[in-house]
């Protein structure tokens, strides 16, 4: 696709023009952390950030949203978001996470209208990653600091300006609409930049055979070892851009009820507890196993890819420094001996 670049001085003008046509979202400071939030004035947008503390997941799967309302007599028409949005400056790992979420919420069998509408109404402008953190491991899980999966437009920072390329037809239209801010350019020097960024990811971990390795070790004491210090707090799931498990909760209104979908987490004991009291995952090690197996075995089995994008948020924010990379290493190193039940 055609490539172009934009002088960094022009970015405020571009963002103002975009804000006139779309609701603009992007990385901003929210009480000391970087969140993907609504940009009310273009000065708020931060483009010199490493990665957002909180992922962009909540822009597609809000922490809580009404999935239907019953007014006491009848169901109220669904309130699907009609907001036309541009998310500007999302990191490639989070873009790739959207491509993974699509596999769950937009399938041949089941379509989630709330998620799909938001995806359709959003243009994702990704910003490639020049400064991966020491906790980043996107290249381990199949991603890339300059990856474009899940994005509509990819931008790359080359100092005074940003390179831009369209990834999807939607992205091409976007760049065409705002072409006056961009200079045409034959071919940007993406490869060199991308290689440099890739080399900055120091995590050395090969998870090529992770699925069969985990499947072989389902019944293994190593799960008890790796889960010993896990508090089961669920911070990792809430920050994870690909964790999508949810709960459905009834709330009463003045005349009727509404059903609210909220984030949930497989690390919580009640997640799987039956009304009878029986719980198939009644210990923390079984729950951590579920979390790891879901991402690196079950996701692979259902969709042919693993369900982790290597953004490193769970590594950075775990209150007891449980590092998923270390956990995977320990699991792969464990002797393949099933534990007697």
């Amino acid at each position, binding site marked *: 696709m055609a490539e172009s670049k934009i002088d960094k001085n022009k970015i405020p003008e571009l963002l103002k023009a975009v804000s006139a046509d779309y609701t603009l979202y992007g990385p901003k400071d929210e009480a000391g952390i970087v969140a993907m939030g609504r940009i009310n004035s273009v000065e708020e947008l931060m483009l010199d950030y490493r990665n957002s503390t909180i992922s962009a997941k909540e822009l597609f799967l809000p922490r809580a949203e009404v999935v239907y309302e019953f007014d006491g007599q009848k*169901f109220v028409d669904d309130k699907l978001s009609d907001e036309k949005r541009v998310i500007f400056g999302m990191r490639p790992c989070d873009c790739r996470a959207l491509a993974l979420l699509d596999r769950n919420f937009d399938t041949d069998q*089941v379509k989630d209208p709330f998620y799909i509408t938001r995806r359709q109404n959003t243009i994702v402008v990704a910003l490639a990653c020049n400064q991966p953190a020491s906790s980043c491991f996107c290249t381990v899980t199949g991603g890339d600091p300059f990856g474009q999966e899940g994005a509509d437009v990819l931008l790359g920072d080359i100092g005074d300006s940003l390179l831009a390329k369209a990834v999807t037809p939607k992205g091409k239209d976007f760049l065409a609409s705002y072409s006056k801010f961009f200079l045409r350019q034959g071919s940007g020097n993406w490869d060199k930049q991308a290689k440099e960024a890739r080399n900055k990811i120091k995590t050395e971990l090969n998870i090529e055979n992770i699925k069969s390795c985990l499947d072989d070790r389902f019944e293994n004491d190593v799960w008890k070892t790796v889960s010993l210090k896990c508090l089961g707090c669920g911070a990792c799931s809430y920050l994870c851009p690909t964790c999508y498990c949810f709960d459905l909760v009834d709330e009463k209104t003045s005349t*009727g*009820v509404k059903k609210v979908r909220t984030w949930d987490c497989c690390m919580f004991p009640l997640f799987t507890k039956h009304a*009878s*009291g029986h719980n198939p995952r009644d210990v923390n090690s079984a729950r951590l196993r579920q979390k790891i197996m879901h991402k690196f075995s079950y996701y692979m089995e259902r969709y042919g890819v693993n369900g982790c994008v290597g953004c490193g948020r769970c590594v950075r924010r775990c209150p007891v420094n449980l590092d998923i990379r270390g956990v995977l290493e320990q699991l792969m190193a464990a002797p393949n001996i099933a534990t007697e039940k």
Partner: protein
Amino acid sequence: MKNPYRPILTKIEKVTVENEAKDLKTFQLVFCNEEEANDFRFQCGQFAELTVLGVGECPIGIASSPMDKAFLEFTVKRYPDGLVTNALHNCRLGDKIGVRGPLGNSFPMEKMEGKNVVFVGGGFAFTTLRSTIKYMLHEDNRSKFGNLTLVYGARSPGELLYKEQLKEWEALNDIETHITVDKGDENWKGKEGFVPAVLDQVAPSPNNAVVLVCGPPIMLKFTLPVLTKLGFGSGEIVTSLEMRMKCGIGLCGRCNIGSKYVCRDGPVFTFEQLQALPAEM
């Protein structure tokens, strides 16, 4: 796009208290909207999410037959800690109940055509088996299936589900019934003994046969070796699982065993399929 979370409305037409402990009730629900009634087509073994509006949802197997077009039946066990099952048990005739479904796969109805079918049921896990027996005994369907044999048991005579129906079936020549209780009372004239033991005595032939087994885990544990001994292959032994569920459509992430979602890939699995899954039930 259809909203997969929104139920359709039904009204409680009839409530039957099924057991002496009074914690099992069968709810007969009629659709509030004729069009929705016509659209609700299900197969034996499927389930639905029942909504008590303002309280929550719970997944329950459909106990009525697909041939019963005018209503749906669900037999619900009330658990002391079960928010929704308690609310359901407190509902009255005429109350509105939301139904979302049909959900999940079904018993292998096509595969069973031309074959003998053995039903092995225990306690209140008998609901979707009852749906299947009713369906197969229906005059429009009976000729499609071979001999039908039922072994059904409960703890005591008072805990047997669908007592009137069981009497009707016993009076028919169309299905061989063996009803047993763990321990009888002074009025009980039927069999005494656990389901696996009775099944062993009845010894149904595995030739050209499929067996549907639904019961508590302890019954399944002792039934499987009996079936294996009788010569049933693990692909011909079919069961139905329960799990805590929310969405019922494979999205919310909680009812999986390994990579399989009980709600979408199940609830019906063959024993062969279960053997390939991790032991996490």
